[in-house]
């Protein structure tokens, strides 16, 4: 049984949307059902590896209803099957449940999504910035953050030769 059939039988009325592109199998999940769907995929579908979590900012995107899409890429290491689970969150205060209890690899990937997009993951044991310095205040991959920043790259003391 493919994971799509599995999900269809388990969650007939959950509003899952399936789509395929070449060998990409994608499923859109409403935020409320995310934990159930991912737990089912892990325990029954055999997706034992969470390859990546990433996000997309759909600000000012045509035909977009939601601000952020969060993408989970799963891999079944015994069959080589892959699937992409996508869910949507919105301003203000975009929050999702953490997948750390299911897959330990969610630790750093969720921190990265938090660092770049400001999406919070509830239940994450240590949700800190992972790439930007701790004192950074913005979320740089959001579309409303200017490419050249708000002056953070120039916020340092200047050392002249006579004083060093």
């Amino acid at each position: 049984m493919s994971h799509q059939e599995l999900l269809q039988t388990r969650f007939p009325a959950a509003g899952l949307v399936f789509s395929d592109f070449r060998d990409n199998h994608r499923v859109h999940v409403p935020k409320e059902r995310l934990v159930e769907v991912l737990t089912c995929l892990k325990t029954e579908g055999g997706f034992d590896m969470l390859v990546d979590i990433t996000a997309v900012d759909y600000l000012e995107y045509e035909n977009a209803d939601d601000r952020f899409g969060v993408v989970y890429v799963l891999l079944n290491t015994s069959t080589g099957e892959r699937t992409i689970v996508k869910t949507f969150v919105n301003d203000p205060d975009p929050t999702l449940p953490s997948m750390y209890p299911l897959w330990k690899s969610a630790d750093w990937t969720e921190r990265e999504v938090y660092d770049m997009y400001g999406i919070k993951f509830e239940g994450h044991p240590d949700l800190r910035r992972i790439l930007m310095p701790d004192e950074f205040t913005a979320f740089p991959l959001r579309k409303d953050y200017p490419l050249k920043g708000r002056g953070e790259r120039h916020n340092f003391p200047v050392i002249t030769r006579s004083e060093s």
Partner: protein
Amino acid sequence: MAVKDIPDNIFMTTLDAAANWSRANSLWPMPFATACCGIELMATASSRFDLSRFGAEVMRFSPRQCDLMIVAGRVAMKMLPVLQRIWLQMPEPKWCISMGACACTGGVFDTYAVVQGVDRFIPVDMYVPGCPPRPEQLIAGIIALQDKVIKTGTINGREFAKRTLPTGPAPFDADELIRIREGNELLPVLN
């Protein structure tokens, strides 16, 4: 003692000239190699280009033992405090070469995370252009720096005390200020 009494194997010089001569011919580089330019820096030190011909082959990974910092590669805003700290840890006399377009100006990386030229925040003596500069170019830069040391150096570093102005442009350019102002106006709306 009259000059005519000095034997042939004794030379007269000034202390400054003697110090400059020895310093210029034994520059010990601190390889601050953060990106692709660092590969070229390694090539410069290796046998084909052989930096030791110019007395600068002793790469030291402790700033306490170096007198030439070679910033090779882009410096991210998270790395800049490290760069400044290493620069401050180097003992006098010290010089700095900014190698490559990224270290000099930020290069193509005009983004929030990359410092737009290390000379805005630490003093730079010599700029080596290129992306990446060829090893010959870096060697030319080091030779030019040796020339500078010989021509302007003093034994107790008096010439450094005169450089009270930053070598680079001011940290903020006008565009930057406009961007920040716009950003701040938008800030309550966005966050």
